[in-house]
């Protein structure tokens, strides 16, 4: 989902930067509030960020014959909501842009928007909807992680089709969706499974903290 350095026209860089900046700023404020209210959630924040660090460093082969990487943004979204996840994604994307020439500083706003905002928003909505319906949080987290990962790549495809609508927006969109989203389906399933395993252990070790964060289904609390 990384849009490479310099590969986005300037006006789009600015648009995505402004939107992402607002969300990340709100996320920083939210992190401060969460840490003030429940200081013990600091470790959980660190684990959510670390999970993104690990997953986004793994370039995995897909059945389409090309490689891509999962995002790890579903876990943070389910625990803390999308704005906080946007802050965590910013850290990961900065590391990769500066040290790995992966993504870039000019495209940072666009990449935060896909991996830190759209993916987590969808993951969070799916997670909340499923747990509200009293579906086990372990199942809900699978769909949150799967959708968060997949929609991140769908968002990137939309961003590129908007910036390069040649010959038309529709054909550009399908071109980028084939490159990104189709490759991503098996990876998103894998990310869903990995997140379920992490979630199961979190639920075993820290049930009270998850409940305090409102991250469990009503019948599990």
């Amino acid at each position, binding site marked *: 989902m990384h849009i490479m350095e310099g590969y986005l026209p300037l006006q789009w860089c600015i648009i995505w930067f402004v939107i992402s900046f607002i969300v990340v700023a709100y996320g920083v404020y939210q992190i401060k509030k969460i840490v003030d209210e429940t200081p013990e959630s600091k470790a959980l924040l660190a684990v959510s960020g*670390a999970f*993104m660090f690990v997953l986004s460093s793994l370039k995995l082969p897909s059945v389409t*014959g090309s490689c891509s990487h999962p995002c790890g943004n579903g876990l943070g979204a389910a625990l803390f909501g999308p704005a906080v996840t946007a802050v965590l994604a910013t850290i990961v994307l900065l590391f990769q842009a500066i040290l790995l020439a992966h993504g870039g500083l000019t495209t940072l706003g666009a990449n935060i928007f896909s991996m830190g905002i759209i993916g987590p928003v969808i993951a969070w909505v799916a997670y909340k909807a499923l747990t509200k319906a009293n579906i086990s949080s372990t199942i809900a987290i699978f769909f949150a992680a799967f959708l968060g990962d997949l929609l991140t790549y769908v968002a990137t495809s939309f961003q590129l089709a908007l910036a390069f609508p040649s010959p038309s927006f529709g054909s550009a969109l399908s071109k980028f969706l084939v490159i990104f989203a189709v490759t991503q389906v098996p990876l998103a399933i894998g990310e869903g499974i990995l997140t379920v395993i992490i979630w199961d252990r979190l639920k075993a070790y820290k049930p009270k903290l998850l409940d305090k964060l409102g991250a469990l289904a009503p019948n599990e609390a």
Partner: protein
Amino acid sequence: MEKSTLIILAVVCIILFIAPLIMYSGHGEDDGYFGGADDAAGEAIEESGFKPWFSSIWEPPSGEIESLLFALQAAIGAIIIGYFFGYWRGQSKDD
């Protein structure tokens, strides 16, 4: 969850990522397999006539250095997860 369920899930995950390696065994980057999706998108953009207007301020000088930094990224994440999960496991009463 039962321990056996966790193991089955982990195995499914491993199979999911070994399958492409078996399906396309014998193919490589030279005939267009296992390339990165990010680069494929970059090529598609260049085909539309767009010239990148900015390049990375620093790039890993070789594939070796790049894999070093990727391994470092994974290691930083893994040690944080491992530290806290170990700590929590030690804390929890049922063990």
